[in-house]
Structures are given as C-alpha cells and as structure tokens.
C-alpha cells in the first residue's frame, strides 16, 4: 500500500502525504501555531504568577510546577506522536512520516531536559537535594536516554530511508516499553523511599493552578507544532533538494 499522493484514492488530505504538497502547507500554518503558543503561554503564566495563590507548604517555589508539569507531559506526548509517525511510515510507506519523526525528536528531548532541570530546581528548596530519585524524574531521565538514542541511531545511518525505518522500529519498541519502564520505576520508588518524596502535587489543587498548568501545556503543544513544522520544512529541503519541484521553487 504505497501512496505517493492520495488524490487517486479521492481523499484530499492524503495529497499532503507528499513532501511537495506538505512543504507550502506547513509554511502557511506555522504563524498561526506560533501566535497561539505565545497567547496561551502569556495566559498560563499570568494565571500561574498573578492569580494562583501561594502554596502553604512550599511557598513561591511551587510556581515551577507551571513549567515542570507541562514540559513533562509534552515530553511524553511527543514521544508517542513520534512513534505514531513511525508506524504511519510503515503502513503508508511515505517519506514524510520519517521526516516528521526526525523533526519531533529534538523538541521532545528539549522538553524532557526542561522537565529534568526544573525538577531539579524544584527539588532543591523543597526536599534539600538537587536530584530527587522520585518516579517522575527518574522516568524522565530514562525518556531522555530514549530520545538521545533515537537521534543517535538516525544520525549513524547514512541512507535516510533506512534511517527512518530503523528509527520507527526503535520508537515503537520504546513506546511499548515506556509504560513498563514507568511502572517499574514507580514500584522501585515506593520500595526505596521511606517517606514519599514526590514532586507530584496532591489532588487538592486550586482550580487556578490546574488552569494555569493546562494553558501552559496547550502553549507547549502549539509551540511544538510550530517548531516541528519549521524543522520538517528544513528536512524536506535537505532531502528533496535534487528534486525538480525544489529547483523550481528556487530553494
């Protein structure tokens, strides 16, 4: 089942599976997602810093949560999306799927790093140490290794098509293992920590706090889409520059 473009099957959106068609579409979409990202981030930060009340136990340090939790959510979400693009590449045999997976990986790794860094700076004033071996942080660390492994594997294979397919297998194996890894680390954490040293907030969070996190998470999502679309355009240019349509575009 190989689809160069979908017009033969009458499905208009499948036409965009061809890099040639997707390239200009991505270019048109980027500004909208960028603006959404900025607006949502401003809203989330406003809620987080100016509306949400001070936490009784942790003081103002807890405001890191509006960065840490959305970043952690995004890092996991992007990994799943990356794996999905890989699966799509297997099923539809399109070049674009592999390019999208390659475009997502650096941003996913970035959010993982932000989650780890903000987690460390949250842990120090709250629990006294720069690194807290709690379930979420440890899982994030392993997720960072998974991202780095994916990027490294793709970088080590010269042929782009082979790199895409190998990456897809790795991402699929990874995404199946992520719940297992998370479960193992959770169990390990409860066993080895006496008191529950956890950066997870208690369920009784003020509504404003939840809204703040939600807006920041949406902002992160919009940002990711904008950046990944921009990156995939660069990747398309890198890989397709020999093609006639690229020459015509004067790229």
């Amino acid at each position, binding site marked *: 089942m190989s689809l160069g473009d979908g017009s033969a099957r009458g499905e208009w959106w499948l036409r965009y599976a061809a890099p040639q068609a997707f390239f200009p579409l991505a270019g048109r979409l980027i500004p909208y997602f960028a603006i959404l990202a900025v607006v949502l981030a401003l809203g989330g930060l406003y809620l987080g810093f100016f509306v949400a009340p001070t936490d009784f136990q942790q003081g103002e340090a807890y405001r890191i949560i509006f960065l840490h939790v959305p970043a952690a959510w995004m890092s996991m979400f992007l990994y799943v999306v990356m794996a999905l693009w890989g699966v799509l590449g297997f099923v539809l045999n399109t070049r674009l799927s592999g390019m999208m997976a390659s475009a997502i990986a650096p941003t996913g790794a970035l959010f993982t790093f932000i989650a780890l860094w903000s987690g460390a700076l949250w842990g120090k004033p709250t629990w006294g140490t720069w690194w807290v071996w709690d379930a979420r942080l440890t899982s994030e660390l392993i997720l960072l290794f*998974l991202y780095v492994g994916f990027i490294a594997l793709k970088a080590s*294979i010269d042929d782009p098509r*082979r790199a895409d397919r*190998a990456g897809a*297998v790795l991402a699929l194996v990874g995404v199946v293992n992520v719940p297992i*890894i998370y479960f*193992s*680390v959770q*169990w390990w954490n409860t066993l080895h920590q006496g008191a529950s040293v956890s950066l997870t907030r208690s369920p009784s969070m003020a509504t404003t706090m939840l809204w703040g996190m939600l807006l920041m998470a949406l902002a992160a999502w919009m940002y990711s889409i904008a950046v990944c679309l921009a990156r995939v355009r660069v990747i398309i240019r890198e890989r397709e520059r020999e093609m006639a349509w690229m020459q015509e575009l004067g790229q």
Partner: protein
Amino acid sequence: MLASTASIIARDLRLAFRRKGDVAQVLVFFVIVASLFPLGTGAEPNQLRAMGPGVVWVAALLAALLSLGRLFAADYADGSLEQMLIAAHPLAATVAGKTLAHWLTTGLPLTLLAPLLGVQYDLPAPALGALVASLALGTPVLSLIGAVGAALTLGTRGAAVLLALLVLPLYVPVLVFGAGAVSAALAGLPHGAHLSLLGAFLAFSLVFAPWATCAALRIALD
C-alpha cells in the same frame, strides 16, 4: 521447522565453542566489574550486602551488553545473514534460535557464575537463590531485547556504544525487578511477585522481540 531451528542453534553453539575466548571474556568482565565496586565504595560488610544485588545485576547486564555485538556481526560480514533472510525457513525462528544460542553462551554462564560473586558480597543463601532465579529469568530477556538493538545497529558507525545507548534504557524494568527480588530475599521478604513479573517480561519479549528483530534485520539488509 523445529529441526532447522535446532540446526541453527547447534551451528551458533559450535561457532561459539571454537571461540571460547569470547565467552570467557564476558565472564571475566562480569567478575572484574563486580569486584571493582567494593574498591570504589569501601568494603564495609553491611553496605556491601545492601548493594550486592544491584551491583551483581548491573555487572551481569553490562557483560550481556558487551556480547551482543557478536550476535549478528559475523553472519553479516560473511553474507550468511542475507542467506538467512531469503531462506524458506521463517526469519523469526532463525532469530529466536540465534538468540537462544546467544543466551546459552552468555546469560546462562553468567547466571551460573553469579552465586560466587554473591558470596563476595556476603549474600546469604536465600538471596543467592533469588539471584540465580532472577538472572535465569532475566538474562534471556536481556538477550531478546539486545537482539533488537544489535539488529538496528548492524553496520552503523560506532555500533557498540550506540547499541548500549539504545538498549540500556530498555533494560531498566528487568534490572529493577531482578535486583529487587534479591533485595527482598535479603530482607527476608517474599520475592515470588518479582520472579513472576520477570517471567511475564520473558513471555512478553519472547513474543515481540523476535518480530522487532526481524523487522530491524530486513531494514538493515535492504
């Protein structure tokens, strides 16, 4: 199919037997790594006993990792891997056979040697039993998952380090529950649940890992 799989296992075992040095190297590495830790942390008995399960398990994990490069490299180099791909014999069975042979020459010797290292860490008999049981269940999983990594990194630059980078995060669940079983036995707590979970990981990887390895091999040899 069973007969040809058996012949593949026999072939790999024969090849490994001709290069006994490779198998011995893995075991020596295992012993060296496990012996390094007390030199690094001090030999206070209670501390050693507490870290023994983790250290022996990590050493076994690293030793298994080192040997994975061998799994497909030789066959890839002399072209027999391509023959296996186009042969009538299902590739998944070939892969399973090679993985089994790999475990017989790596994981199994590690499992049998582990009690000696456990004694170095003053682990009592129940903990030693848990060590052998957890390694017996866990090392096949290490071989199965490792095979996926070995296939993915076939012929790539810096394959050995890349393989470690890819495979070590995936080893975490096996490590957590394998070492956890021994720690539980050490504390006098039941460890049946840990071993059952390791068994579940083994069953899961027996079903899925050969398939992923086949996909990766096909990609590498296209």
